Structures are given as C-alpha cells and as structure tokens.
C-alpha cells in the first residue's frame, strides 16, 4: 500500500481531505491495545471510524489506487447511512457511481444508493428503481443476489 496506493495524488487528496488517517504497525508491542480493541487479525486491514472510535466500515486486502478511492468513499457513505444521514450517504454513493462506475465498489454503491434514497423518501419506487439499475448495470455482482427476491 505504501509503495503504490498511498503515493497516488488522488488517494492522498481523498484521504487527507475527508479523513484523519492513522497507521498502526501490528508488529509493534505498543500497538497491542488498538489491535485488541478492533480485533484485528489480518493485514491490510482498513477501518473507517467515527470520532467516537466506532467501526462503521472495514475491508481486508490490498487495493490499487483506482479501487482504493471508491472503496474508501463507500466507507464514508456507509458511515453517513448508519448515522441516518440518508441524503448525505446518497450524495457520496452517487459520486462513486459517477466517477468510478467500473470499480469493484460500484455495485455496493448502487445497492446502498437505492436503500439510502428509500430511507430518505420512504418511497418504494426509489428502492425498486435503484435495484433495477443494479440488475442491469451489474448483473454478475454479488450485490445483485442480495436483492434478487425483488426480480
């Protein structure tokens, strides 16, 4: 991550602009309290935390820059969604779909964009329209399976 992803200007801009970043070396004894607090087991392990330390979103594994940015934005959107800021979450999911439509995070963004819009409006049409887009744009995605009862 340090040799490729964190050197890409788009990654630096996103991380510094939207987050307070911190790295924890899991090999150091001094890291043990944080490793135990978050029950970390395998690197790379990226967490999106609230200011209270709550773990809103996480993933394991290396991502190249063009996948890292949309994945991190989906984490930001998930934090907004789970904080019941549905309009704010929808804005971020739409940004991911507009800028990174072919990223591995895009189908998840489409799935939760539909959910965020539905929660904001309580209009089932929003949900079904969003999931229809998921079916047509990302037909082979695991996220399509999660709404397949509606097909």
């Amino acid at each position, binding site marked *: 991550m340090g040799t490729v992803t964190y050197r890409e200007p788009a990654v630096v801009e996103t991380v510094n602009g939207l987050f*307070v970043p911190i790295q924890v070396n899991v090999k150091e004894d001094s890291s043990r309290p944080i490793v135990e607090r978050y029950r970390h087991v395998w690197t790379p392990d990226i967490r999106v935390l609230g200011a209270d330390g709550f773990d809103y979103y996480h993933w394991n594994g290396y991502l190249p820059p063009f996948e890292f940015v949309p994945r991190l934005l989906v984490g930001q959107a998930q934090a907004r969604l789970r904080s019941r800021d549905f309009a704010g979450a929808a804005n971020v999911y739409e940004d991911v779909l507009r800028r990174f439509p072919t990223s591995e995070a895009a189908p998840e963004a489409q799935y939760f964009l539909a959910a965020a819009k539905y929660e904001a409006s309580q209009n089932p049409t929003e949900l079904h329209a969003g999931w229809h887009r998921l079916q047509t744009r990302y037909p082979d995605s695991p996220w399509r399976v999660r709404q397949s009862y509606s097909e």
Partner: protein
Amino acid sequence: MATAVKPTVKWATSLDEALARAQREGKLVMLDFFSPT
C-alpha cells in the same frame, strides 16, 4: 529551479490524536493496520 513536492498522506501519530482531530474537524478516521514487509 523549484522542485515539485509530491503530496503525501498526513498520518496522525496516535489513535487518540486522530479521534480528537476527527471530532474537531468533522471528519472520519481512516485506520490502516499494516505489517511491514
């Protein structure tokens, strides 16, 4: 001739500092557990 300075990620030095800054600046924290290779 001036040399262009590449932007770098500005890492916080402790989780407490990161959480306090996040509270102050209205941001989230990105926590990266890593193992040096």
